[in-house]
């Protein structure tokens, strides 16, 4: 998956970034990352907005990527006996027009 990388200081940002929050520079380049991290927090949304009625209930996660950035993502339902808890290792699964989809590793 791609993140925006500041061309001045290398700080990563969730696309589409306009101004680097660390150094104030305004040029970014799309950079591929593995998409590995752990669950910083998550919740299962049961009262959806109109456009997401087809997916409800769905789990929304904040992934703490290896690179240090917090990334919003939808989370696949837990398979096998994997436990959904803060700190659980997760990985990028796929991406569509609704953003990134992660799964428990």
């Amino acid at each position, binding site marked *: 998956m791609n993140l925006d990388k500041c061309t001045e200081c290398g700080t990563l940002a969730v696309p589409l970034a306009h101004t680097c929050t660390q150094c104030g520079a305004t040029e970014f380049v799309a950079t591929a990352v593995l998409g590995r991290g752990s669950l910083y*927090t998550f*919740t299962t949304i049961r*009262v959806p*907005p109109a456009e*997401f*009625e087809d997916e409800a209930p769905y789990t*929304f996660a*904040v992934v703490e990527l290896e690179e240090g950035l917090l990334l*919003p993502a939808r989370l696949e339902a837990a398979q096998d006996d994997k436990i959904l808890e803060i700190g659980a290792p997760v990985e990028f699964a796929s991406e569509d027009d609704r953003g990134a989809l992660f799964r428990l590793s």
Partner: protein
Amino acid sequence: MRSVSIIGIGSTVFGKHRERSPVDLAVEACREALGDANVTLDQIDGFYLGNALAELLNGQGGLAGMVGHELGLPPRVPFTRVEGACASAGIALRHGYLAIAHGMSEFILAAGVEKMSSAPTTTVTAALGCYADSERDGRSGLTFPGFFGLVARRHMYQYGTTREQLAAVTVKNHANGNKNPRAYLRELVTIEDVAESRLICDPLRLYDCSPISDGAAAVVLCPTELTREFTELPIRILATAQTSGPTHVGAISDMTAFPATIEAARQAYQTAGVGPDDIDVIELHDCFTMAEIVDSEDLGFFPKGEGGPAVESGATSLRGQTPINPSGGLLSRGHPVGATGLAQIFEITQQLRRTAANQVEGAEVGLAHNLGGTGMVATVTILSNAA
């Protein structure tokens, strides 16, 4: 800069007003404030109206123009719509204050209104969801309750905040709202009622969330030096600060605090020359139970992570050391989002006039905190009844 005071307040009952338009609600609150101030329409030289969602939920744009005209304000008066998500009314108050403080205006009418009950829940959820970054978090289906569900789980993980402590916020605020004739949800609830109510976004349940509500509130402001003609007890605005914060999850480093609140509080305390210990009564932004706990920490009343034990101990109840949300707060009084900031000012003004339904004894200095979006904007206003 001139000192500015509140000389009149007005508010509708908050609740479901399905047959009434946002214009109708705003006109009621404005007329009450004008009457309370003993000020006539032709004395008003500026009108600010806080409102967030009239285009999306009511099909009505230009709401400040609509309300100003229906009130009967003449062409020479500027009408300004103020929008800052759920902080719209706090920002409206601030702009009214600035207009007088800097000598541009003499008598300002500032109001806030929201009419949310006509639309289905999924539509209201989507409208509120517009305040998420639509290209990032919103795109992936993040909702308002969802954001605070994320915050709650993290705060519980990082600080040990418990399900019972969250519920204690609702229990307290409903106990307060029970006595407030303008509050929406006035039924008493127990910890069990809250903890067993319908799951919305775990760990948040129905009673952890402020209800979809309709309502309006308004104030009349003037220079402190002119107040004697209108009221024996003007309430002085010691400070009003407005700040900004991260607008999407990827820009946040710590999801258990709102930098906008922390900075607004710092500025307001500095301008007013007071600290958290000097505040006698507080109306803060409890859009969710978790929000009250986080806000109470961000505003400096308790160390980070101690907000949960504080509410559980009774420290923030009416008779406690740090009374929070004597009106019932957003959870009980209701949260018509564009009106809330001025409903808070309405309550603090009553407290400082000693006319509140849930009177905090001897209140002299009050603080109102209004938060917009997922911490995108915050206002902190400090009021005093000292001469």
